[in-house]
């Protein structure tokens, strides 16, 4: 096989940080090469050098046998290096085709746009991906998964020979992931080299040929994906052994019910959902993307209105109509989208922790007690091990795991005894994940009722005392937690569609 890319001895320094230390990486034509490492290991920096966003401080980049590193994203594109970013960068109000060819629109004379050619060329790319989509479809109307595929089509329109994919499956469900992998296999067959970055370990086994592990800005090892056990890869990533034990399920038969939901309904999203959670229990919610798990959480929390159904907190009916009511009833919600719904990113750690419990630090005249706030914030920083230079650091500058801990601190301070965690470890690396898991278990052990929504089955199975499974807005079953429940049982419930759709 020919080497498409060969990077050796790559060095990169930022003020105060030695981001890459003598890193090596190579890519063959027609292979999927996974790049693994915790957040901050240097994966993104390395890929930004390859795609021309950063210039290297040392080392050589050989592309196609030529010793030339791209010096701009544009140069990288011309060399045939395409990148699909983790965060979607599409214009929602334009059509799929307009997005794919943005900046390179086919034109007629006098600068008039050739819309038919645009749509035809886009349709060709979609066809090559075996993607069934109208090029004239509005991007904003598509699901995240289909937007991701449009993003891939955009990258393919440059006819790349190297394609960098940064966490392409972060927002996809299992069916969509399978479709994406089909596209990847076809690209492989065409001789495209793919660099694949993901935190989902099981995907590595499914799609990757080789794996390179990085840690703390250094190259650790490059291994054959098929022959290396996942535990070994994780060990290399975190630099120590990580054990994944099944949950110890406490006996909560005598415990009081903390939250009960009866016949919850909302439009087409949620049909007649009833369940309960006891004090000290962790109830996991599994299901495919769009099954209605987040919607349930938002309804219980009063973020979205409900059409019908009752919510009982500690046995008392509770008319929750806004998050303000929910917090008053002792319910906290940790959104799947921390950056948009959980944190004020350009405010400090201290201000964010105090956000839900400002009343505790306010005198009768409305004056804030900063000293008390600092003391509390410092307390949580120590208790939860939040890695931050100080409580006055802007939250936006912390890593994903530490941001999540700030959100948790916010709700602990509010003293909520019912906590709903929506995708608690999204975008968080392996090492920090187990810390978050332990934290959730501690919270349950203290007698709090915990609901965990997760799209990662291993996570649901690792944490839950009971597992509620949803499909298309209905609760299709509740399984016991522990080693006896299999992934297959959960998937069976998660795909159990109703025989006849309910009339609207």
């Amino acid at each position: 096989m020919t080497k498409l890319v060969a990077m050796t001895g790559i060095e990169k320094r930022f003020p105060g940080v030695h981001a890459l230390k003598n890193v090596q990486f190579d890519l063959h034509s027609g292979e999927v090469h996974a790049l693994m490492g915790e957040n901050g290991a240097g994966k993104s920096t390395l890929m930004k050098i390859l795609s021309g966003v950063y210039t290297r401080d040392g080392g050589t980049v050989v592309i196609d046998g030529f010793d030339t590193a791209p010096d701009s994203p544009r140069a990288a594109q011309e060399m045939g290096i395409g990148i699909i970013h983790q965060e979607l960068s599409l214009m929602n109000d334009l059509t799929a085709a307009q997005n794919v060819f943005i900046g390179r629109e086919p034109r007629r004379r006098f600068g008039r746009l050739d819309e038919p050619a645009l749509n035809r060329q886009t349709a060709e790319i979609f066809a090559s991906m075996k993607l069934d989509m109208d090029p004239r479809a509005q991007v904003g109307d598509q699901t995240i998964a289909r937007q991701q595929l449009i993003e891939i089509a955009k990258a393919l329109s440059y006819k790349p020979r190297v394609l960098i994919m940064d966490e392409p499956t972060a927002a996809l469900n299992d069916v969509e992931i399978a479709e994406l992998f089909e596209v990847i296999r076809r690209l492989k067959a065409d001789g495209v080299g793919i660099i694949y970055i993901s935190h989902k370990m099981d995907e590595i086994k499914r799609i990757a040929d080789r794996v390179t592990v990085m840690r703390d800005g250094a190259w650790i090892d490059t291994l054959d994906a098929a022959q290396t056990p996942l535990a070994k890869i994780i060990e290399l990533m975190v630099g120590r052994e990580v054990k994944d034990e099944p949950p110890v399920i406490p006996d909560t038969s005598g415990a009081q019910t903390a939250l009960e939901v009866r016949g919850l309904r909302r439009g087409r999203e949620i049909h007649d959902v009833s369940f309960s959670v006891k004090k000290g229990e962790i109830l996991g919610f599994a299901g495919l993307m769009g099954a209605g798990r987040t919607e349930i959480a938002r309804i219980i929390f009063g973020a979205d209105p409900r059409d019908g159904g009752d919510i009982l907190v500690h046995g008392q009916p509770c008319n929750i109509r806004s998050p303000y009511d929910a917090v008053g009833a002792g319910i906290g919600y940790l959104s799947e989208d921390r950056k948009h719904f959980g944190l004020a990113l350009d405010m400090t750690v201290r201000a964010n922790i105090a956000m839900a419990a400002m009343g505790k630090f306010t005198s009768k005249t409305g004056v804030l007690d900063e000293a008390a706030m600092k003391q509390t914030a410092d307390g949580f920083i120590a208790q939860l091990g939040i890695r931050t230079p100080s409580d006055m650091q802007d939250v936006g500058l912390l890593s994903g795991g530490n941001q999540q801990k700030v959100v948790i601190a916010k709700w602990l301070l509010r003293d909520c005894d019912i906590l709903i965690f929506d995708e608690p470890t999204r975008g968080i690396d392996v090492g920090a994940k187990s810390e978050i898991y332990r934290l959730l278990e501690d919270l349950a052990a203290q007698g709090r009722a915990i609901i965990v929504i997760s799209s990662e089955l291993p996570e649901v199975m690792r944490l839950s005392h009971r597992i509620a499974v949803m499909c298309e807005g209905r609760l299709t079953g509740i399984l016991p937690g522990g080693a006896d429940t299999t992934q297959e049982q959960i998937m069976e419930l998660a795909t159990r569609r109703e025989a006849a759709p309910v009339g609207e």
Partner: protein
Amino acid sequence: MTTLTTDPTQTFASKLLGAFMHQRLLAFASLIVLLIVFSLASPNFMQTSNMIAILQATSVNGVLAIAATLVIITGGIDLSVGTMMTFCAVMAGVVLTKAGLPMPLGIVAAIGAGAFCGLCSGTFVAKLKIPPFIATLGMMLILKGLSLVISGTRPIYFNDTPGFDQISRGSLIGEVLPFLPIPNGVLILFLVAGAASYVLSRTVLGRYCFALGSNEEAVRLSGVNTDRWKIAIYALSGAIVGIGGLLIASRLNSAQPALGLGYELEAIAAVVIGGTSLSGGRGTIIGTLIGALIMAVLTNGLRVLQVAQEWQTVVTGAIIILAVYADMMRRNKSN
């Protein structure tokens, strides 16, 4: 980053210094440069009487700009501060001249009218979900019309209320320090600025101003009653506009119902020159104060240099664009 959430253990002096060094240095430096340029250009500029005239000219716009700053930090905008100021002045006139009630009631009427108008704007924005630009645009026209209707389109004079003109034109400082006859209007501006600054940096209301501008949805999902706080912020802003109404009424010794339109843009310009972000989440009162001073110094200086009034407006516009551009450059560099 640029919020004034400072550590209480810091001394006041170091905090003030920090505020200048950190955020307002640029605007402050421009102010100094302007002062130097104008003093070199004309010997009439750096006179105590002229300096006091500049401060006096700043007082109304400064107070309105402080009111606008609060709303802008939440990510909103208030286009109604100009006509609201006039409305408050007219309300003072109704109470004092038409009803013949004592002065304190007139003051309460003006501030109360402002707070009520702010309450209405805030309710439109928070409860009816009308974008702030539209809600306050509507308010601006409503208040302009109401001022004319209530006053019968004629100015209301305060000749029957002795001492009313002293609210702005008298000088408590001058009585103590005769060589420094700073008018009360200026004193009030600085008192309002101090109070607003305190509210922003030390109270819950201020914290929620920044939080709403930074990420409103996250604040709502923290279980905060965001609607109520937003309404409170608009109401406070309106009350400050009421003080502005008193200042202008006192200075003119009359409520001029046709006045007001255009003042809102001057106020917003001062806020923007002072480095407050129109997208919300960041801003300071001291910046706004400097912004208002820059505008007054410009107007005054150009007049002293006998530049035609038309050109003064052109220069002011150019300065606004320049100021915001410079601020963005600085911000990009620091990121």
